[in-house]
């Protein structure tokens, strides 16, 4: 069992599996539709030079979201 943290706290270059997303939040509904679901594996690619937003590789696509949304999502870091 890897260590769990929020999506916003990952280190660049590491991968993780999403453990939970709060349900019923409109700001996360579109992220779900774009494939960020419990069980989805993703890689944190980089932080923007000014610190926000964050860039992830999810299901073969590069997706960027702000720390505000990323901090709502709990992930389990993969070795």
């Amino acid at each position, binding site marked *: 069992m890897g260590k769990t943290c929020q999506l916003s706290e990952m280190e660049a270059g590491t991968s993780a599996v999403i453990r939970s997303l709060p349900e019923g939040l409109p700001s996360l509904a579109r992220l779900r539709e774009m494939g960020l679901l419990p069980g989805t594996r993703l890689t944190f690619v980089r932080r*923007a030079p000014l610190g926000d937003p964050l860039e992830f590789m999810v*299901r073969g696509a590069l*997706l960027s979201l*702000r720390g505000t949304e990323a901090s709502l999502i709990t992930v389990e870091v993969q070795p």
Partner: protein
Amino acid sequence: MSTGVSPGMVYALVGNPNCGKTTLFNALTGLRQKVGNYPGVTIERKEGDCFSQHGVRLKLIDLPGSYSLNARSPDEAILRDVLLGRRSDTPRPQRIICVMDASNLERNLYLFTQVVELGLPVILVLNMIDVAESGGLRIDVPKLSERFGVPVVPMVASRKQGLVELKLAMSRADLPPPRALLDALPVPVRGALVRSREALAAAGVVSATASPLEPLYLISGNDPTHYGIDAAALAIIQNARAQLEREIPGWEDRMVSARYDAIMAAMDEVLHRPATASATLTDRIDGLLLHRVWGWLALGGMLAFLFYLIFSAVEIPMNAIEDTFRWLSGKIISWMAPGDFRDLLTDGVISGVSGVLIFLPQILLLFFFIGLMEDTGYMARVAFLMDRVMSRVGLNGKSFLPILSSHACAVPGVMSARSIESPRDRLITILVAPLAACSARLPVYLLLIAAMVPTGAVPPLFKAGMMLGLYAAGILAAFGFAWLFSSRLLPGKPSPLILELPGYKMPAFSSILRQMWSRAWMFIRRAGTVIMGLSILLWAASTYPKLPTSAGQEPDKSAALAHSMAGRLGHFIEPVLRPMGADWKIGVGLVSSFAAREVFVSSMSVIYSVEEQDGDDDDTLRGRLRDRLREEKRPDGSPVYTPALCVSLMIFFVFAMQCLSTIAVVRRETNSWKWALFQLAFMTGTGYLLAVAAWQAAHFLGL
């Protein structure tokens, strides 16, 4: 024998953003396309004709790129409404071509799972298959086709590879309806949707024969503004939603998961990934362009190059346009007898039209660069880099480019705000973008700075510093108002930023040029007609009524202008202008500059009788005008153009909305006079108040 597809069959092109849908649309239709707008919204509506492999004419509708049928923006609402047959202005498509980026199959298939449920025959296009294969992905096409019950065509649309196969599929008369990935909607959800359909049908929102899917997408919680749905229907929809949420909490989230489960089950059979992912070209380019040092240098360098082109290289075609119109006016003067009609043609029509067309090279160049940045995938990176800065004032990274473009011309700036999905962010961007110091302000600033500081009295660096200050004032004003509007005028949660960074690709120049031209043409047609009408009006105002002159006597232009409507208007508004230090002559210049800012300079030359002489270039004309301005005295003998007045006028020009083209484009892009007039009022109001404040302060301090 099968007769093939029936003529006039309507196909819709559907797909995620950045899947190459438009490239495919262009490849299929060639030049047989019509670009317009969906009535009531500024979303490009593209329709075209194409021929099946057997020469049967088919109709093709290119729908806005979208991630889901749960509409979250006006673009996506168009997709939903056209596919459901809810728009009276667009025929319901009979078949659907679902385009996807082959490298990104899982995510792209999400929309597909929604589309196949609509019951229409679907053709699946795996676009950019070359990129997917070079990345080591193997897609079992026959198995994919079998699994979903649809024809699957691997393609490289930009090279027209696979086009024949697609046309063959489109030619089939017997395209079967696809097999849905989900067996059915979960039973309780289906029951709830059937009930809400009855309530909606009773109210006339959907037809009695509508599928339960229609309420599914109408009551989606992703669509807080419910585009295209009237208020009466909204209550029913919200009731239905609340009821569904009570009965089955989290039903929507669960449906998303169910769709992805079905996709993943299919992918296990169809998609073979490489064991180890190697760094792609996109990774390597991003390592540079999103780097904390090189990234900024690249962005800065590119923008510097763009602005160099806009302000210097484009002068050649701009001068050519000006010379052409001057030549034309010269011809008219030599062909026609002097008279009001000749003056109307030369001073009204021609100067009005050339005043608009002079900006065309800049506008084309900007549209070209914007298209290039969008098409290569760099645009999303600019938004990624700039998001933090823009979020400080309540906007997001996508607002950066429209505001930046407005430094050349607000017209393409306002139009490029179309790429912002959130209607709130888009409106705020449109409202503040024209505060950026556009190139039409430049001649006015040059004149005022020249009039204010005598040549040689201060180092040239001082003048450059003033110019820089004026540009900075424009940027600060745009950001300040953006902050004010996002926190006061349109409060509400800023929409979360979800930005896809598409893989880099070679730009398709023919598509970029086509889009550049269609956008520019919209500007010429709309702004051109309005501008020409108003230029004629302004000409008439500055010509009539005429000063009585005796025969053979050359009329004094300056006196004639004073006698005209415009001159009287200048006198009339003088009491309003006095608090900012201006007199009626400046008033005439200001009135005329509401057509376009740079007109101020030419009006001032008429008012002060600084006539153009043969061989004059702009600098010498401006120099003589500057000298004339310095000589101008008030009735008490003190000079008019004191530094205080120049500063007051500069402040006015920084803020005031004095551009008919922009007003016309804002009216078009916001689809309402309300916002265009609001913008005119807040910008001009701020300009006036601050100009008055500056003049009064200078007066108080005895400057």
